[in-house]
């Protein structure tokens, strides 16, 4: 019985991190779907989101005895505002001028932007790991725990991550499928030139993509920063790499693919640590990526590419 509980606990751990990966992966996959570039600086946007929310939380806790949900909401809104502005600025400064160049040019520009943003935060906020207070405490027991057997828990923090991810994903799906901008997004991702001929302001749509991706990354920054417990200027890069892997795993360009890829990656990592060894966590996630790409070269849910002549 307790083995089942252990399995369940590791599954929950994996799904928690996986849903956050999915939130970040959306940013990669939407940008790739529309302009076909890897936005390497996206992980840094997520990191900045985490920093801003911690700054707001620390600031509010000092000035007023605050009601926690309100603090979180304010922090979330501020993080989204700063991150999406950052996403907007990054697109304007580093990507728009090089759009349409050789594929490698925007990539290098993005890597440069990523290094720049890392060091920007590093210089302003220092390189230390800073503790992130846990504002959502407690949890529910899922069973086990009798006479020393393993007890599985679902903490309220994990529950919050699931619920917020679910809300964001549903909202995004509705936005993409129902709204006018969403429809334009889909059109642009199918054929940029054609949709611009049909009167869609493609620049506006591309900007919107960056802003949406950055907002979701900010949400992930707040949630994961609090769940993990500390932030530092480098943690965006690692998370970004993982999220990008998730996006490719699910089929880059596909939004459901990003969600699926994030969850698969999170669970794979958790099971590797749980049943094998933490040392091989990254080996397994990258190995899994290589394997899937070998057998399904466009990822789990990606559309097969048609070679056009």
């Amino acid at each position, binding site marked *: 019985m307790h083995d089942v509980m252990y399995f369940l606990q590791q599954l929950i751990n994996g799904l928690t991190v996986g849903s956050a990966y999915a939130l970040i992966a959306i940013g990669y996959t939407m940008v*790739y779907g529309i302009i*076909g570039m*890897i936005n390497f600086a996206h992980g840094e946007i997520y990191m*900045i989101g985490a*920093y801003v929310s911690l*700054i707001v939380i*620390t*600031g509010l806790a*000092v000035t007023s005895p605050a009601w926690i949900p309100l603090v979180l909401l304010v922090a979330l809104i*501020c993080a989204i505002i*700063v991150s999406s*502005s*950052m996403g*907007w*600025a990054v697109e304007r*400064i*580093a990507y728009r*001028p*090089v759009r349409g160049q*050789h*594929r*490698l*040019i925007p*990539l*290098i*520009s993005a*890597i*440069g932007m*990523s*290094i*720049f*943003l*890392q*060091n*920007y*935060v590093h*210089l*302003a*906020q*220092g390189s*230390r790991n*800073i*503790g992130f*207070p846990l504002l959502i405490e407690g949890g529910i027991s899922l069973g086990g725990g009798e006479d020393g057997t393993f007890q599985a828990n679902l903490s309220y923090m994990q529950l919050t991550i699931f619920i917020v991810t679910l809300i964001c994903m549903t909202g995004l799906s509705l936005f993409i499928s129902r709204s006018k901008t969403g429809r334009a997004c889909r059109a642009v991702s199918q054929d940029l030139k054609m949709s611009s001929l049909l009167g869609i302001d493609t620049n506006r749509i591309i900007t919107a993509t960056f802003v949406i991706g950055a907002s979701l990354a900010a949400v992930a920054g707040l949630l994961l920063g609090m769940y993990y417990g500390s932030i530092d200027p480098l943690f965006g890069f690692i998370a970004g*790499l993982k999220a990008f*892997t998730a996006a*490719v795993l699910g089929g*880059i360009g596909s939004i459901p693919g990003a969600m699926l890829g994030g969850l698969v990656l999170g669970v794979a990592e958790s099971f590797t640590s749980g049943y094998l060894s933490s*040392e091989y966590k*990254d*080996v397994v996630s*990258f*190995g899994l*990526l*290589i394997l899937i*790409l*070998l057998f399904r*070269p466009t990822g789990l849910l990606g559309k097969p590419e048609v*070679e056009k*002549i």
Partner: protein
Amino acid sequence: MIAQNFRHALFCAFITLVISYPILGLNLEAQGISIKLTGAETQTYVGIALAVLIVFLFQLFRPAILGGLGRVKALNPLVDRQPMPQEKRIRFERVALVLIVLGAMFWPFIASRGAVDLATLVLIYIILGLGLNVVVGLAGLLDLGYVAFYAVGAYTFGLLSQYYGFSFWMSLPIGAVLAAAFGFVLGFPVLRLRGDYLAIVTLGFGEIIRILLNNLTDLTNGPDGIGGIPDPTLFGMEFGRRVKVEGNTSFHEVFNIPYDSTHKVIFLYLITLILAVFTLFIIRRLIRMPVGRSWEALREDEIAARSLGLSRTAVKLSAFTIGAFFAGFAGTIFASKQGFISPESFVFLESAIVLAIVVLGGMGSQLGVILAAIAVTILPELAREFSEYRMLVFGAAMVLMMVWRPQGLLPMTRVHINLKKQEAGVTDHA
């Protein structure tokens, strides 16, 4: 129009404020056991205000400023200049290369020890840049895990010297060939993938190699790394103060000169120089050969190249393998220069830097890669006093370079034959 401009300028200024104030103006500081929010120095606020103002003014008068810049550019002789005629350009490149090599040969005798050591590092990056140039610049395969082959070369030498006492000269070809073999074996399944998928898979592969080196403690000594890697010898002569391997003699005793530690640094530099020139020469030849032409053909249009009968796999694999070969070369030299290697020398940033060298140099152009390698390695050293800002400036420079000069320092132009207009249809048999 003016109102719109004003609105836009206001918006940009606002965004500047939003992205700079919270991060720069509010600092999280650990005071004792709790985190406190402290304000920044007054000068930071002044800086933020200035940045906002500048952005506002620039956006407001953007048409005027850009128009003005355009006129300045017109005065700049570099912009509207005709491209150099082909013969002249080839001659220019050849002369430049020869001059660089000649200068490099005399460098150790005029420069200080630290400068020679730095120059050795530059040469290692030149070899890496030239190697990756084959993969990325010529064959158009985006490889983000190039550092893996570099690591294979370095560790081959480290392990061979540790377990079997191999010398530098024995390990150099083995390291390079082993790295090439890795490139070949890994390239096989992976090269079916296109563009960005290839990029992420090579990136993942680079990480896997590094993690394995770190985890296989029994074999590679894990994070402790491998120390005591020998220096290169010259016909059995060692350059250290004392002879370390039995049977060897020491350089200063043979020639009966007083021991001077700079001999070793200079010798290593010269070896690296020879290997770099060798790399340059081999790749220069390869570019002219059918295999080099087919790399470029495949890069330009894969479908057209295949329909002309080129084997996609063979062409891509050859580029991948040759690139890996030279990375192994560089790795062996690096191990010898450091005397100590550990997995932390082979992180993703290293791949990114080599890639930046290739792109900054102008993809495909060898002279460009050499200049870019020199710039990328030396600039941070010159800025050592301002080391806090070194990586910040490096990142910003990468972005600015891409925006202003995406074709790189010296873009590659292919050697081609001009058709004479008056005899249209008849090829000039040059």
